């Protein structure tokens, strides 16, 4: 059983939902990332999504675009993100780490080389925004051999006919993009998300996380009422952007607030 699966199962057994924060690796500089990951876990994160900087982040809004640019100014790339994960693993063997980014850095490294290096670094899952199931067969097979979960996005536009292909290849969890748009866009509508999740669950047996547009504890609490996991990205990256002073503490306390709101959802 993968670390993601066992984490999800343990949470489900307690009737709780996973809290999945996203930060861009190397933002604002490579030295801070591992410390921030620990601070997020301490605040109550169950899984960490670590953004791999890319020169052309087509699916991201301005906040995460700028995070990528700050990291790239330090020339942070996939191999550095793997090194950061390995560093994180030295003192945390429990929290799953998912690398989130675009296909080309993985392509450039080669699927096989990447899979081996990722296992060695302690990576648990990979989410490549621009690798839909149609193009993912080879990558999925190689990652599966190495025990790494390939995580797919689902969108409001995804028709039932595509869900079967996703169900066949996806592992770990699936990530439902709550709105049409880029990361950091407007607030999501919890009622329409709830309706869509009912439909998705007819086809998808994996846990379903919801992200895009979750900016505060209250929204997180309401989403936790309908989803298996809550993903928060741009809101955290905005904290990073606000400056390095007390950053770990700020992220920690924000996550604590979200965690406690989510845990009252079930009470």
């Amino acid at each position, binding site marked *: 059983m993968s670390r993601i699966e066992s984490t999800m199962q343990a949470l489900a057994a307690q009737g709780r939902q996973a809290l999945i924060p996203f930060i861009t690796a190397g933002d604002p500089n490579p030295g801070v990332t591992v410390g921030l990951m620990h601070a997020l876990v301490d605040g109550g994160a169950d899984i960490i999504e670590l953004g791999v900087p890319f020169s052309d982040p087509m699916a991201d809004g301005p906040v995460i675009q700028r995070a990528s640019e700050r990291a790239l100014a330090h020339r942070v790339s996939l191999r550095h993100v793997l090194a950061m994960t390995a560093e994180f693993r030295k003192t945390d063997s429990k929290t799953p780490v998912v690398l989130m980014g*675009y296909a080309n850095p993985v392509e450039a490294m080669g699927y096989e080389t990447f899979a081996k290096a990722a296992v060695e670094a302690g990576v648990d899952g990979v989410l490549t925004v621009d690798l*839909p199931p*149609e193009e993912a067969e080879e990558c999925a097979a190689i990652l599966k051999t190495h025990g790494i979960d390939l995580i797919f996005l689902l969108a409001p536009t995804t028709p039932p006919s595509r869900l079967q292909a996703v169900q066949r290849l996806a592992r770990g969890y699936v990530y439902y993009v709550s709105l049409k748009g880029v990361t950091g866009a407007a607030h999501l509508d919890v009622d329409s998300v709830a309706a869509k999740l009912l439909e998705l669950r007819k086809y998808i047996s994996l846990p379903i996380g919801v992200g895009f547009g979750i900016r505060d504890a209250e929204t997180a609490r309401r989403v936790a009422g309908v989803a298996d996991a809550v993903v928060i990205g741009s809101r955290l990256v905005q904290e990073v952007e606000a400056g390095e002073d007390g950053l770990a503490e700020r992220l920690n306390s924000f996550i604590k607030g979200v965690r406690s709101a989510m845990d009252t959802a079930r009470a």
Partner: protein
Amino acid sequence: MQLQQPSHRLPSENVMNEPLRYHQPDVRGHFGQHGGIYVAETLMPALDELRVEYEKAIADPDFMAEYRYELKHYVGRPSPVYHAKRWSEQLGGAQIYLKREDLNHTGAHKVNNTIGQALLARRMGKKRVIAETGAGQHGVASATVAARYGLECVVYMGAEDVARQSPNVYRMKLLGATVVPVSSGSKTLKDAMNEAMRDWVTNVDSTYYIIGTCAGPHPYPMLVRDFQCVIGEEAKVQMVDLVGRQPDAVIACVGGGSNAIGIFHPYVDVPGVRLIGVEAGGDGLDTGRHAAPLTAGAKPGVLHGNRTYLMQDEDGQIIETHSISAGLDYPGVGPEHSFLKDIGRAEYVAATDKEALQAFHDLCRFEGIIPALESSHALAYAARLAPTLPKDQVLLVNLSGRGDKDIPTIAKLDGIQL
């Protein structure tokens, strides 16, 4: 002259009645190892809808009749083929013929595609179109057809390109389009395309994305090619009329490569015709400051929805490119060109900024034609090749656009304040 259906469906000039051997892409948009659909999930259903609607449209005689009517009466097709006699004599070798896409309405080949896609947008009930542009030619062609069909139009353009192509920016505004300067990344064509993708993913229900080159996710590389194939289809008839045979080589500039694929594709199955794509050599391939992924031997990668040869560093980050011509300043290339390189059917070479400028001035002075800087790259290679060949050889160069938009750039290089 009767315009035919796109050549991959119905080869119009298949004189020998041979079966068409070249049939690309496959059903999922792959040209060998290139092409495909690499986009975020939100866009997948829209691309599928586009593919289905496109298949229906080109099978619909009314759609094709309207497309042909617009090309004839609005664009002014067929565009002539012209024998550049004085320049050929000056070069002292092969005879150079020019396919005059510069004489199209809007001044470049881009409108062949935007007409087709605007008709598709209208057929699909979309009221808003978006486009990316480098030199501004595709932006102008999109703004033009949006005005023609009463569609709202937003054009994304790199901030650097907005500065160096100011006449085209103003033309788009005159035509009623909104031009959005893009200040992220390298502030050129690739960043404009990123921003257009972001707009599309946000407004996918109401908006049709008119991609201007033969790149992007399937079905774009195929449909842009099909709409541009009118260039090669006409040329095949015109060359027989003019010289009694097909040319020995067809030469076209390649950024994304839509004008090149439009003139190459109908010739792919014609034996004995060399196909030569000319990339932007910038300051020279050895300087690293260029936009010539095919010539420089770049590795394949994934960008803007397709796999293709791509200028990237060892970490898979996209490298900033350089060319004097904004329209060629792009790190990738249409996937079909990558495929034609792989199978050895087309050759790819580069011309530097300096060579392109020389050819620009030569065509002005010897033929009275002011070419676009993009097209000047194709001319530059023709000027290099022609003197090495006998006088009875024939080179057909796609003069993909006119150079009015480049006059401020050229004047600045010559130290002249306009």
